[in-house]
Structure formats: structure tokens, C-alpha cells
């Protein structure tokens, strides 16, 4: 086969690409557009100034990575609530099963994806830190 034609075809393709808009995202300066259903950091939903969670233990049960720790407590109205709600982000696989399992829509996932930290203990998100993400 004629060896010159493929090279010329290739050169024309690379020349066309030279004038295309680069797809690179200048990350720290430009932020990516996070999709609406992106599964990032968890957040506990709030209703009437308190977490909606009723400590039903469905999320730690369904969690395949066993990263959720819930302890139930009783508040002044004798309602069950999560006295302790911790997610270990080092174990979490961001599958979203906890969100699917929740019967009271108390947990959701946000677009937050920058979860790097300096210490192991900082990866364990307690109830306050999860609530902060409104």
C-alpha cells in the first residue's frame, strides 16, 4: 500500500485538532460542573431546625462498606433521634445505598468532591460536620 497517503491524512487530522478548543480544565482556577446526581460527600437533611434522621439503622445495615455508625438516643419529646451519626470517608465507596435506603429522606449526597485531609481522624465525619453541609 502507498505509505505516503496515511501520513498525509494523519498530518491533516493533527492540523485540524490544532485549531480545536482544548478540553483541558484548569482545575484549581476553573471548577468542573458537577452533575445534579453526582455522589459526593454526604449531608444530613434538616427539618424544623433538627436532623430528620430517626436512627432507624437502615443505612448502616445496607452500607456495603460498613462505614456508617449510628447510635440512637431519646429526645425531650420521647422521639428517637441519632445521638451519634458518623461516616468514615476512608471506607465509604460513595455507592449511595444509604440515600436509597433512608425512609425519611434524612441523608443525601452533595457535589462536594474535595475530601483530602492531613490526618486519618479528619476523615471521620461526625453529625455536626455532616449537618454543616446544607
Amino acid at each position, binding site marked *: 500500500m502507498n505509505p505516503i497517503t496515511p501520513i498525509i491524512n494523519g498530518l491533516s487530522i493533527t492540523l485540524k485538532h490544532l485549531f480545536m478548543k482544548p*478540553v483541558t480544565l484548569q482545575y484549581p482556577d476553573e471548577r468542573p460542573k458537577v452533575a445534579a446526581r453526582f455522589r459526593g460527600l454526604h449531608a444530613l437533611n434538616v427539618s424544623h431546625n433538627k436532623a430528620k434522621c430517626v436512627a432507624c439503622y437502615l443505612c448502616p445495615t445496607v452500607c456495603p462498606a460498613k462505614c456508617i455508625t449510628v447510635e440512637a438516643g431519646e429526645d425531650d419529646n420521647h422521639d428517637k433521634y441519632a445521638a451519634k451519626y458518623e461516616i468514615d470517608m476512608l471506607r465509604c465507596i460513595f455507592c449511595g445505598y444509604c440515600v436509597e435506603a433512608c425512609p425519611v429522606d434524612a441523608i443525601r449526597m452533595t457535589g462536594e468532591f474535595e475530601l483530602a485531609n492531613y490526618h486519618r481522624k479528619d476523615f471521620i465525619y461526625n453529625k455536626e460536620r455532616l449537618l454543616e453541609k446544607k
Partner: protein
Amino acid sequence: MGIEILGLPMMYYIVMVVKVLVAFVFVLLTVAYATYAERKIIGHMQVRLGPMRTGWHGLLQPIADGVKLFFKEEIVPSQASAFAFLVAPLIALVPAFITFAVIPFGGTIELFGYKIPLQVAAYYDTTAGQVFDVNVGVLYILAMSSLGVYGIVLAGWASNSKYSLMGGLRASAQMISYELSAGLSIIAVFMLSGTLSLTKIVELQSGFGGFEWYLFKQPLAAFMFFVCSLAEINRTPFDLPEAETELVSGFCTEYSSMKYAMFFMAEYANMVTVCALTATLFLGGWNGPFAVAVPLLGPVYFVAKVYFLMFFCMWIRATVPRYRYDQLMHLGWKVFIPLALVNIVITGIIGYFI
């Protein structure tokens, strides 16, 4: 001012030194920014951005790279042959730069009352009223470019590492075989020009408004010379001596710091020289419209041609994958050398009858 050396005033020598320095610094800057241009151009051809973070659009990248390499640790492997290991980058670098001495990059300009030919190794004889340069300029370039291979072979051998040795051996085999076909392909040009002096060759191409290029008379020779030169200076698609996939980094595997940078500078300086030589031999050198009337246009045309050819090198690099070793040897010995010989014969026959 009153001092005279060999019958010529001091000022003349100062002007000559300034010419050499300007040319050298220009080549050096071109070499530095060729790395940047290459990364940028290949980046955009791959729909990326290339360097962006050092300076505006990464413009300070070559300087940052230089500073980084300068402050890196000098490593000489314990089993290496230390002297050869240290001297090899110099042997690669020096011929790459001194080949530029005989390439004319402009016509004759007048400065402080002296006529200065824009070519490092040339002078204007006032009594004869013409420019004298190295009358075997092309031979000099071919000789120097074949010296460059010693640096690479020596680097490969002195490193005492199998990857380096393989890279060095490949480099020598490749450079020697492609030198033959590169040399043979430009013989056709000398048959037309009848001289080896680059100044004369450029003058011969000045007709027809600066467009009487040997590219149009010898298209096959131009193509073969450019491709063989790419192979001779180890550019892609013939960069087998430093094929990362097989040989880590080829002959410069064991090199670090400034010595590594010198190999890179040699590679890019070779690219500049080869592009300058191709521009001189086939694209009319510094010729162009009004280049004789306005002497300062000469260097502009020359630089434009050289930069276009360098862009073409980078364009090829972004397009063509690396050749296999047997394909490379096949192309060199069984395709280019016969083609070059046939080209010489045809040029001879046509030259005999015209």
C-alpha cells in the same frame, strides 16, 4: 580605535564578535523556546493546553525547566567510566551548535562603515568586493553532524547500563545509515549548483523574485533530505535511540541534572540546524521578495522559513508513531539510498542534455 590587527581596525573585530554573539544567543533562545513551542503545539494538536502555569500561558517554562535541571543532583553511576561519562554531553552539544557557523542567515548589511555578511564564518573582502565564506560549507556541516553521534555512543557506552548501551548502538547504526542517504540526496543539489558554498547556493536560488528554490527543481531530494535529517537527529518518528517503551530513556538513561539538559539542548540545536540547512538548500535561505533591496528582511525570511520547518518537525512528531527498528533500516537502506542514487542519475542525465 587606533589599534589594528592584521590590517583591520579594532572596531571591525568588535562588530564581528557582536555578530557571532547575536547569532549564538538567538540560536540558544530558539533552542530553549523550541521545547516550549513543541509542548504547546503538540498539546494543542492533542486538544490539550500544554504548559500553562509558569508565567502567562507557561511562557517561562523553559527557564523554570533550566533552573530545575541546574539545581538537580549530579549523579555519576559508580560503575560508569567517569571521564567519558562527563565528556559525552559536551561532544554531543558542541557540534550541534558549531554547525550553525556556516549557515548564511541574511545578506550583507552595513554597520559602522563595514560590510558585514550575515553568516558567522564569512567576511567581506573590500578589495575583491565580494563575500568569502567556507567554500565547503556543506561538507563541514555533514562532518560536524556525524561528530554528534560520538557523544551519543560514548554516553551509551560510558553509562555502563544495558539500556544506555542499546540506545547508543541504535543511535550509531541509525545515524550512520541515514547520513548516507542524506548526503546522497543533497548531491543532486550540488550537481545543479556546482558549488558547496552555502552563500553561493543561496545566491543561485535568488532569481524569480526569490522563489527559484531548489525545492521546485529537486522535490524528491528535498523530501529525502528532510526525512533523513529527522532520522539523523533522532527526532520522531525515528527516535529509536531513546524509545521509552523499550529502553527507558536510551543513551541518557543514567544522566541527570545539567548533563541531561545538554543532551536535550543538543537535540533541539540539531533540529534548528537541520531546519536551517533545509531552508538554505531547498527553500532559498534568506531569499524572499525585496530581500536584496532591504537587507534586514533577509534574516526575517530566514527565521520564518526555519520556524516553519521546525513547526513541521513538531507536527510530524504529533502525528507519526515511532518506526520499528527493522522498518527503519529497511527505509534507510532499501528505499532512500536507491531513490537518492536514481535521483542523482536523473539529475545527471537532465543536466547533460540541457
